[in-house]
């Protein structure tokens, strides 16, 4: 009897066809409305809510919603190029600012009546305290960004507690003095570590600061079950009524990528960021889902970094040969069209990028000729280091096949993040390795200075991991950084791009596009080119009672 029942249940279950179109639709509201809850997930753990320690993508998902800075970026609008407008700096907690003629003195005026989520007023001294704290905290990666501020070195070295170049003459004004001209410095102040923090709160919270944020942004912390979920609620004291439409944001941690999409499909998540390749392919084939895919150009670059001091790569002909040998169309196909081939480090939409420069064509014959000219007619064998992970693995497979065609045989080693960083940052480490760079701020200096200036070369953990040392490039980089005239500056970066293209310290490969799928009721959302996931301007088109409108039977979703 029981056996028959079980068998029946099994048969019923086996035959059940699950409807895989969106299960809900937009309720049809005509404009932004407050309310609702949005759930999103990430594959990793949230490390910290302390903006001075939060460098990783996932922590930024949280700090981005919790903290406002003096200046910030507008939200991204849906549409492929929607990210472009989101790169302009706009006033946030500062209502205005002035830069002196020589570019060395900055003066900010704070907005009137801005408050933290506990109702206390945000004052200029809080910004000063936050910047000094970044300089003092041993575990913070951000101190280096303030190196150009007068007196910053003294605080960093522990000689003084007070940073002479940052002053708060009264509650509403903040002054910063720089020791050298820096066209990109304003971007640094838009990083979340520069968010205001009152000394009293920091001292009260102590080590607990990593989970007791004092919010200045549109959302504040409701609860954090570490390793599991973070819940944010709207900050009632926030100044900007144009941000923070959704009542509650929930970030689920450690959801595997394949599971994320399944949960999204069932309505357990409202958005799905970077679905895995098979899920993306599946989506592309579903007419009901295709209009709900959001694509935005990201400020990143991917390729293979070469240690230019190590033979055979010290010969520029070998480096160019590798650039000709790689089939970028293959790479784009492996990434299912979510990438654009690149000619250098600066991504599309970035200031100073030279759009007329075409990527190296795929030309194995030329690659072989160049290798022969350099004395390697039969190629060579070389160790290649990549990160452990699904995408690097596939790309390594493709690269291995492309290079084998011109005689370069790769021995692939896939390493964990820490081991990989250690290996590529050492002068005697692997000569060829996978690399990528994601901007800290949307300025060419965030790409070129860090990766190609000889100042960034070190014996251990070198940022310039190509160990690329060209005096003319160094000079041009320094000039461009200090240039305040945008037209001149753009020309300088175009010259740099050209120079790097010819010298080929990397195999230039591609820029990634961000993909995010949303449920039909998620409105006015696109991934942000700087913050990636920014739901501060998103609203949910729900029914008046706050429930999701189900898709009517037989109605094709949109």
């Amino acid at each position, binding site marked *: 009897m029981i056996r028959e029942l079980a068998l029946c249940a099994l048969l019923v279950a086996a035959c059940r066809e699950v409807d895989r179109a969106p299960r809900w639709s937009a309720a049809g509201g005509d404009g932004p409305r407050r309310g609702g809850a949005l759930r999103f997930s990430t594959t990793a753990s949230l490390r910290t809510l302390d903006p001075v320690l939060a460098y990783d993508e996932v922590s930024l998902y949280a700090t981005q919603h919790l903290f406002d800075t003096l200046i910030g970026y507008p939200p991204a609008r849906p549409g492929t190029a929607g990210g472009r407008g989101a790169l302009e700096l706009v006033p946030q907690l500062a209502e205005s600012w002035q830069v002196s003629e020589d570019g060395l003195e900055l003066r900010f005026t704070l907005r009137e009546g801005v408050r933290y989520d506990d109702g206390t007023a945000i004052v200029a001294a809080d910004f000063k305290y936050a910047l000094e704290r970044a300089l003092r905290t041993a575990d913070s990666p951000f101190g280096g960004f303030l190196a150009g501020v007068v007196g910053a070195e003294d605080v960093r070295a522990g000689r003084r507690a007070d940073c002479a170049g940052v002053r708060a003459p009264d509650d509403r004004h903040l002054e910063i003095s720089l020791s050298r001209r820096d066209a990109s410095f304003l971007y640094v102040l838009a990083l979340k570590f520069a968010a205001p923090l009152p000394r009293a709160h920091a001292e009260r919270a102590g080590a607990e600061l990593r989970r007791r944020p004092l919010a200045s942004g549109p959302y504040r912390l409701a609860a954090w079950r570490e390793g599991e979920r973070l819940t944010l609620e709207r900050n009632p004291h926030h100044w900007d009524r144009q941000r923070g439409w959704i009542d509650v944001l929930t970030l689920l941690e450690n959801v595997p*990528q*394949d599971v994320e999409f399944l949960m999204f499909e069932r309505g357990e998540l409202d958005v799905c960021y970077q679905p*895995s*390749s*098979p*899920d993306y*392919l*599946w989506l*592309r084939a579903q007419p009901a889902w295709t209009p709900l895919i959001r694509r935005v150009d990201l400020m990143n670059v991917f390729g293979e970094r070469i240690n230019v001091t190590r033979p055979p790569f010290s010969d520029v002909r070998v480096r160019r040969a590798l650039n000709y040998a790689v*089939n970028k169309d*293959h790479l784009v*196909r*492996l*990434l*299912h*069209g979510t990438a654009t081939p690149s000619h250098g480090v600066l991504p599309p939409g970035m200031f100073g990028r030279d759009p007329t420069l075409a990527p190296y064509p795929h030309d194995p014959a030329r690659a072989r000729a160049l290798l022969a000219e350099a004395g390697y007619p039969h190629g060579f064998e070389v160790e290649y280091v990549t990160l*452990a992970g*699904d995408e690097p*693995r*596939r790309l*390594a*497979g*493709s690269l*291995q*096949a492309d290079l084998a065609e011109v005689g370069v045989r790769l*021995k*692939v*080693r*896939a*390493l*964990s993040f820490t*081991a990989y960083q250690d290996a590529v940052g050492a002068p005697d480490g692997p000569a060829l390795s996978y690399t990528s760079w994601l901007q800290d701020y949307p300025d060419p200096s965030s790409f070129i200075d860090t990766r190609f200036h000889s100042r960034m070369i070190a014996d251990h953990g070198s940022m310039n991991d190509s160990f690329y040392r060209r005096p003319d490039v160094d000079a041009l980089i320094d000039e461009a950084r200090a240039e305040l005239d945008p037209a001149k500056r753009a020309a300088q970066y175009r010259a740099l791009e050209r120079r790097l293209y010819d010298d080929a310290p990397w195999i230039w490969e591609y820029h990634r596009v961000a993909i995010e799928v949303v449920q039909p009721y998620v409105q006015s959302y696109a991934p942000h080119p700087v913050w990636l996931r920014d739901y501060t301007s998103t609203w949910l088109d729900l029914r008046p009672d706050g429930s999701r409108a189900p898709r009517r039977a037989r109605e094709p979703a949109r």
Partner: protein
Amino acid sequence: MPRAQDPPARRRGRRPLAAGLIALLVVGVAAWVVPALGPDPNRPDLDRGLTALGAPLAPSGDAPLGTDDLGRDVFARVCYAGRASLLTAATGTALAVLLGLLAGMSAGLVGGALETALARAIELVLAFPILLLALFAATALRAASLDGGGGSLAVVLGLLGWPATARVVHARTRALAAADYVVAARGLGASVPRLVLRHLLPNLAALVTAIAVITLSQFLLAESALSFVGLGPAPPEPSWGQMVWEGRIYYRSAPWLVLAPALAIVVTVAAVHLVAVGLQGTLERVER
């Protein structure tokens, strides 16, 4: 444990043993002969092996088990992956059994402090979550670049897997050393190597074979689990656990990427288990 009252025990071992050995033979042929006949299992084919958007191809006449995410033939790869999986498990087993045999025999023969030390060491290793340790060790070796993966995994398994063998061998050696004929041989002045070669090893052979087979099945499972969490051979070399890991995200559109290597693991381990069952039957006969 002899069970004299069991009449079918006499025949019980034969059928599973034969079935297991035949299955293993098939797996072996698939691993070492088949890849030579078909397409290169490691060579990506992005032009013909993928759809225009870059999706794997479904099973067809050209590729009986479809292609993977780099356009490679899955059938060729599953066959070829058997080499890494089998070699790692077999090398590990050989190492573990050899170490266990050495440790167990010397402790059983010498006795005294060595025996106590060994007993303690065995207990220590057994009281520890072995696979967790293997995980750390393999990660470490991988990062230290001592080799591509497969070899270090075998060494790790061997170094951690010997206590089981040592324990059994030790017990049996002690029993044998106390047996009349060994005591007599010793009394007559037989040297230790002679003792080992003439009296101990022949008597341990059946037992050790049985242990080796069980260890092999355990190591096949361990190898697949460690490959599954990313400690398999370096790309492009495949192993079964690694293929399951790489293919798992394709459950929606290309389930064959998971099913084929998963089936290969289950069939191979089941075959080894059958051999173990068969040997047990044989062992029971020998012991009576």
